[in-house]
């Protein structure tokens, strides 16, 4: 044992005023979330990727003199070159223009499906949870029954019977797609609605819709955002799947799904026809997935370090 001389001990001073001092600046919830999100390198990478993809979807078709629908039968199946950056397809259409034009359609389908799911889901789930009792019971039973209907089979069925097009596709995807959102919102609102601040708002005479949209929905924003970022890639996936079954958007419109399923048949001889749309699909889905995961981690207070 080492000898410790008495002089080395000093009384620790307790300053009571120090104890109450807040050492860290206080952060709002969303600030905290954004700090944690920005620390997640993979998620930030996904976000940057998404910005680039959206930028190219908007400005890409303007960067090339070719448009997405003009056939050029003298220049079919040309590999990528200075003239056609991504090559041309079997009708001589410029793949660079088609890829970014297709980006608009694929992203639009994803975003529109997610927004419609959001709208119906928030209303349905919010009302069911807030009203409670019989209303809740009936509304959620309806959702349960619809939930049992196999999603892709119903989508295929609708696409076969109704006229093919963008609108039909979005309708088919959202007809049962909103239920997931409704369930999440309902769960969140059920947790929140018995909290004191809701009671306080009621006491102050706030109307139901005000409580709903000013107090409850903003507090459920986290899980809603995560669900939305994960709905978009699944809609893009579904679009690609339907295109492969021949139920995609009609020609000459281009979407990544129709381009990729065209490209699959030409894989052996003209691989670039598959490569570009397929890469874009994968990058987009990858980006949305990592952003969604990053958001979920950033929103989860248990993971705070």
């Amino acid at each position, binding site marked *: 044992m080492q000898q410790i001389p008495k002089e080395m001990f000093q009384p620790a001073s307790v300053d009571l005023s120090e104890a109450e001092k807040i050492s860290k600046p206080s952060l709002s919830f969303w600030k905290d979330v954004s700090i944690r999100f920005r620390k997640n390198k993979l998620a930030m990478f996904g976000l940057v990727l998404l910005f680039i993809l959206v930028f190219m979807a908007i400005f890409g078709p303007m960067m090339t003199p070719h448009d997405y629908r003009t056939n050029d039968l003298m220049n079919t199946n040309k590999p990528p070159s200075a003239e056609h950056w991504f090559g041309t397809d079997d009708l001589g259409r410029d793949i660079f223009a088609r890829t970014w034009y297709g980006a608009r359609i694929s992203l639009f389908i994803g975003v529109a499906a997610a927004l419609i799911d959001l709208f119906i889901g928030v209303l349905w789930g919010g009302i069911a949870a807030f009203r409670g009792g019989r209303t809740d019971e009936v509304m959620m039973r309806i959702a*349960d*029954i*619809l*939930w*049992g*209907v*196999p*999603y*892709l*089979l*119903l989508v*295929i*069925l*609708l696409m*076969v*019977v109704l*006229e093919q097009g963008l609108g039909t596709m979005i309708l088919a995807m959202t007809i049962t797609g909103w239920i997931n959102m409704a369930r999440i919102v309902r769960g969140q609102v059920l947790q929140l609605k018995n909290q004191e601040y809701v009671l306080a708002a009621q006491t102050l005479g706030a109307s139901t819709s005000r409580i709903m949209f000013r107090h409850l929905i903003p507090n459920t924003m986290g899980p809603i955002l995560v669900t939305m970022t994960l709905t978009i*890639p699944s809609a893009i*996936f579904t679009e*690609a*799947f339907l295109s*492969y*079954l*021949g*139920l995609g958007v009609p020609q000459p419109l281009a979407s990544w*799904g129709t381009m*990729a*399923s065209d490209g*699959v048949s030409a*894989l*052996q001889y003209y691989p670039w026809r*598959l490569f570009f749309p*397929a890469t874009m*699909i*994968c*990058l987009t*889905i*990858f980006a949305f*997935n*990592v952003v969604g995961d990053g958001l979920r981690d950033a929103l989860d207070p248990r993971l705070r370090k």
Partner: protein
Amino acid sequence: MLRYIGRRLLYMLLSLFLIITATFFLMRAAPGGPFSGEKKLPPEIEKNLNEFYGLDRPWYEQYFDYLTSIAQWDFGPSFKYKGQTVNDLINSGFPVSFFLGMEALLIAVGMGVLLGIIAALNHNKWQDYAAMIFAVLGISVPSFIMASLLQYVLAIKLGVFPVARWESFMHTILPAIALATGPTAFIARLTRSSMLEVLSNDYIRTAKAKGLSRMQITVRHAIRNALLPVVSYLGPLSAGVITGSFVIEKIFGIPGLGSHFVLSISNRDYTVIMGVTVFYSIILLAAILLVDIAYGLIDPRIKLAGGKKGE
């Protein structure tokens, strides 16, 4: 438990009723009559055909007939191929699809769980990153692209597997792998995150303190609880395998129900589309119900009680 199953059966029947009704009325709303083809049929023949299939009767009689015939496991005729019924297609195609689906399911669960556990046990080491990169790639690539690439590289370029068709066990491997890729990736992620959660529990620390080996802790204590989310994913997984098989069977030229279905879509053979949809719905709903019941039996913490609130 019995009350729970009864309740679930009731919902299942309601969902089924909904999809049967939807298919019936959508079929009637479909553009063009069932016999409109390139050639216009003489009116007498069309009248006879309508009579033969009962299409001249009022819609509610047809609807009722449709319901009763499905209750008797009769999914109707094909209007495009004379003399062929949907039941014929199911009998010839479903065993093939079932075999392919089961093989894919085994691969997905086996590989996915293994990858997930390896990743969780080596949290934040290279094995973890490798498994998760694979998982993210696996869920980012649409199945038809993955299948075509596998077919191109492994069968056409390298010649390791047969390119297509359905003849020997070797023919089944590539399609099953292609079908299993997405689910494998998803299960790997699921297993990893639930395994990480389980490993941080107190009872694992107790097991460590007792001096149990790492192997024993993982196998006897951790995996059992970590696999519960995977079990509950088996329902959606079977849906994914069924719909995935449409694409895979088409690419590899497999004579299963999926490729019949895809063919009937491009032929606009409405009665076959409807019949197969209803058949798949029955299979799927039954699979999901079975999974839920199994889940209740495996996890004693879940009380499968009747319909009362607050349970």
